C-alpha cells in the first residue's frame, strides 16, 4: 500500500469509527443506555439533560 492510501485508510477509521465511539460515549453518559445519568452533588442531572 502507498503511504497516501494508508493515511486515508487511517483517516476513515479514525473519523468514522471515532465518531461512533464519541456517539456511544454521549449515549452512555446521557443515561440513555440504562442506569442513571451523571448527577451533581445536589442530585441534579448535570450532563447534559435528564433523559
Amino acid at each position: 500500500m502507498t503511504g497516501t492510501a494508508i493515511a486515508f485508510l487511517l483517516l476513515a477509521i479514525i473519523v468514522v469509527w471515532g465518531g461512533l465511539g464519541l456517539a456511544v460515549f454521549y449515549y452512555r453518559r446521557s443515561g440513555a443506555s440504562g442506569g442513571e445519568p451523571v448527577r451533581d452533588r445536589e442530585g441534579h442531572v448535570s450532563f447534559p439533560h435528564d433523559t
Partner: protein
Amino acid sequence: MAKATKRENWSGQTGFLLAAIGSAVGLGNIWRFPGVAYENGGGAFLIPYLVALLTAGIPILFLDYALGHRYQGSAPTVFRRLFRGGESLGWFQVAISFVIMCYYGVILAWAASFTYFSINEAWGEDPTAFFTGTYLELAEQPGLSLDVVGHLLLPLLVVWLAVLFVMVLGVQNGLEKANVIFLPLLVILFAILVVRALFLDGAMEGLNALFTPDFSQLTNTDVWLAAYSQIFFSLSIAFGIMITYSSYLRRRSDLTTTGLVAGFANSSFEILAGIGVFATLGFMATASGVGVQDLEGITGPILSFVTFPQIISMMPGGPIFGVLFFGSLVLAGFTSMISIAQVVVAALQEKFELARAAAAALVVGVCGTISILLFATTTGLYTLDTVDKYINEIGIITSAIVMTLVVSWRLRKLPELQAHLNRVSAFQVGAWWRVLLSVVVPVMLLVMVGTTGLSLITDGYEGYPTWYLNLMGWGVVGFAIVFAIVFTLIPGRRGREDHTTFDPESLRDEDDLEEVR
C-alpha cells in the same frame, strides 16, 4: 382533545438502537458502498461522504425520529395527525416499503441459497453461467414471463415464513430479539471475514485501490451526488421505517444521541465492508494477474453472486469464506427486511384495527405471492433491477422532498420538532438543523431526482426497452401513488382523528414513568 394512546414499546433504548442499526445496515452496505467509493474518488470520496452524512443523513434521521416519537404512529397516522391530507404521504411511504419488501425477499432467498451452495462451491467453473443460467434461468430479453423458476420457491418460502414469524411475535419479542441476536452475529461473522480477507495475497493491492485518493473527483458534481445517494439509501430514511420504529419508544427517550450512534454505526460498517470487499477483490486481481482497475462486477448482485463465487473458488478455505460472506448478507438483509415489513404491518394494523398476526399474515401472503409472480420468474432479475432503480431513486427521494418541504415550509413545524428533540435528548440540535432540513437537504434531493429522472427519460436504463421501463419502472412509481390515494380514501375502522383532534403533548411523562428503567 384526544389523548395519545399507548403503543407497543421497545424494552429500552438499546433495543431500539440495535433495531435502528439493524435496519440501516443492509445489503447496500456490503455490495454498494465499496464499489461506489472506489468509482468516485477512492479515499477522496470520504470527504463528500462525511459531508453528506452530517448535512443530510443524520438531520433527516433526526426528523424521522422526531415525527414518529412526537406523533406516535405508523407513517400514515403520523402525517394525518400532522396536517390535513397528510395521510396520503404516509401511505406513499408505506407503498414504497411494500414494493421494496416484495423484491428484498427474493434477494434474501438468493443469499440463503448461495450460503448453502458455498459448502460445495456448487457454481463450478463458471459462476456467471451458474447464477444467470442454472440458478435464475434468466431469459435473454427483459419481459413479463410467468414462467416461475421452481427451485427458487423453497428458499423464498423459508424467508417469508421467517419474516412472518418475527412479525407475529411483535416489537419486543420479534423485532427487538431478532436484532439483538442477529446484529452482533453479523458483526462477528463479517469481522472474521475481513480478518481472513486481509491475509489473502494481494489484499493490500485492493486496499490501495480503494483508499488512494483522486482529489480531482472532488470538483465533479456526480461524485457529490453519489455520496448523498449512498448516505440516503443506506440509512433507511424517508420511507417510514424510522418513523414507525421511533413511535415505539417511550416518552422519555433520547432521540438525537441514539440517532448519532445509529448513523455512525452504519457508516462504520460500510468502512468495514469496504476493507473486506476490496481486500478480497485485490486477491482476485493478483491471482488473475490483472490490476484491480481491470476487474468488472464490483457492485450490486453481480458482485455478490458472480464475482464473490469466482473468488471463493480461487482461494484456500473458500467454502468457509463463502458461508461467512453469504451468511452475512442473509443477516444484514433480514434485519433490514423486518424493519421494512413493520412499516406495512403497523400501517394496516392502525388503519383497520387488525390483530398483529392477521396483519402480518396478510402482508406476508400478498408480498410473498407478488415476489413469486414478478421476481421468481425467468425475467425476475430484469424486473427486480428496474423496480429497485425507480422505487429508490425516484420514489424514496420524492417522498423525502415532499416530507422536508411540507414540514419545514408549509407547516413550519421544524421549531416545534426541534424543541421536542431537545426536550428529550442529551445532544441538542440548533438552528443549523432547521437550515439543513429546509434548504440544503431539499436542494440536494431536487438535484438528485432531477438528474436521475432526466437521465432515465432521455437515456433509459441498462438498455431495457422503453415499454418495459414505462411499465415496471415508472409504472411502479405510479402504483405507489395510486396505492397512497386508495388507502387514504378507504375508510378505516378507527375514528378519523386528525391534526385538529390529536394533541402530541397529551401523553405525559407520568403515563409511562413506571416503565422507565
